[in-house]
């Protein structure tokens, strides 16, 4: 048998590959599957947060901001607990980023608020005089794309098994259910209800009026997303 292999270098190479790949497979895959299971307390994003996530991607916030806290004391002191792979279980795509022109945003929801984001996103220099982050005034006018966010949610739920409408375990032992609408109209109503809660803490009259009319400016969705990052 080995004689045969020696005479057929191609199949010999295939055989070597299979043996080594198998060793890799049993070493790497189970570990990886274990580590990427959702961490207790990780929830899927709600509809409005998903729309905000799309705004985040659309404006390339990830070009300047990472979402990955490394296990170094200097980082955990500043941003909070280091990131665990299971915390990204529902991120599609993940937004780790590779450059920090601005600070990490993985847990920004813990130490920044709706009111602050409103001032900061409109004109970063008004809060941080030396900031080099650009302002995003158009987000206060453009509407968020709720249809796409809803489609993303549906895809995530149906093809990737993201647990919408199902209980997910929380850190305190309770369970939480993130609801997903069952129709486009229902989705809009749901997003609007979420948006109203955010705008009740905002100052910008145009944004408040828009939400009262049933529109959802991008900034509201973005803030919902930023607040959810904990």
């Amino acid at each position, binding site marked *: 048998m080995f004689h045969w292999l020696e005479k057929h270098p191609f199949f010999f190479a295939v055989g070597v590959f299979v043996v080594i790949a198998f060793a890799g497979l049993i070493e790497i895959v189970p570990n990886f599957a274990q580590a990427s299971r959702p961490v207790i307390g990780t929830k899927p994003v709600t509809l409005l947060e998903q729309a905000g996530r799309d705004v985040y991607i659309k404006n390339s916030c990830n070009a300047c901001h990472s979402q990955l806290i490394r*296990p*170094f*004391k200097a980082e*955990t*002191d*500043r941003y*909070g607990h*280091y990131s665990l792979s299971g915390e990204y279980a529902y991120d599609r795509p993940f937004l780790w980023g590779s450059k920090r022109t601005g600070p990490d945003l993985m847990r920004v929801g*813990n*130490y*920044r*608020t*709706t*009111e*602050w984001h409103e*001032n900061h996103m409109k004109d970063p220099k*008004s*809060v*941080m*005089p030396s900031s080099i982050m650009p302002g995003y005034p158009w987000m206060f006018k453009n509407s968020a794309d709720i249809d796409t966010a809803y489609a993303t949610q549906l895809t995530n739920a149906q093809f990737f098994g993201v647990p919408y409408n199902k209980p997910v375990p929380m850190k305190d032992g309770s369970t939480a259910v993130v609801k997903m609408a069952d129709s486009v109209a229902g989705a809009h109503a749901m997003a609007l209800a979420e948006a109203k809660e955010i705008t009740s*803490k905002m100052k910008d009259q145009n944004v408040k009026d828009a939400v009262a009319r049933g529109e959802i400016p991008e900034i509201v969705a973005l803030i919902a997303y930023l607040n959810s990052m904990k």
Partner: protein
Amino acid sequence: MNKLYLWGIIITAAMLGATYVTVGYQKGGLNGDIVNMLAIAGAVALVIITMFVVIKYVRQMQTDQASGELADESWDNIGEYKNPVPFGWAIMFIGTMIWGMWYFTIGYPVNAFSQIGQYNEEVKEKDAEFEKKYANIKGEQLVNMGESVYLVECVACHGLNADGNNEVDAADLNQRISEKSIKYVINHGSNNKLLGTEMPMPDRNGLFNAETGALITDKEIDAVAKYVADGLKDANSAGAKVFANVCAACHGPDGKGMAYVAPDIATWNKQLVINVLDNGKKGVIGKMPAMDRLNPKQKEAIAAYVMSLSKGE
């Protein structure tokens, strides 16, 4: 002299020449620097030794005759001599195996490393260092530490002048509390765990004037807000009278608060600042998030810093 030596001399000379030119014509040259000179000496030695070794082996390849006893096996007519392994190599080979076993089992066990383990060690070490260095600092040192923590954690909202960008983004920390905040508290009550536990202050529908026996009025609110914001100084003002009749029962006649009843609203104190950091705060300006991941010493330092800001008032 045969061709081989000639080539050796030519190449050596060329390389030494190149070294001389590159170094000599560079700005500053050797610069009289001992390290540079050592490096050049090393380079010269390297060129010469390399040439000797190369010549030796090329000569050997040219002239060597194979000799010795052939092994029985032959692979595609390629034979092998039965020469013993050179002694030095054998020793090194066995030595490497022993070292390898030591390395994998004792020196650096395969399972001994984890990123998180390394992180935990780092944290422990740094915390111990912090503890040792800062456990007993006080006074100005404490204020300085508070300021440096402030500049990292709080400046985004409270601003470089600690005035909260004119109270647009956060509270002005150069004073105990602003007039607009006081009015808001009287109108809406307050439930921010300022005493460390749940101990709300009633809103205006629960604040009675002991003198008139009626609920506090708009005019009285304006007066008392001004009086408190000014630091409860003007004892003859209308506000002082309202304060004595409405607020003093809880906040004390001097506004310094009473344990378990109401907080100090005349000045900042350490515990008050720490309670704000631990529980966050909601008010007329907005919401301050809890900043409870600071360590106790840092919180104490921040309290000292906040107190130092409003000292002048």
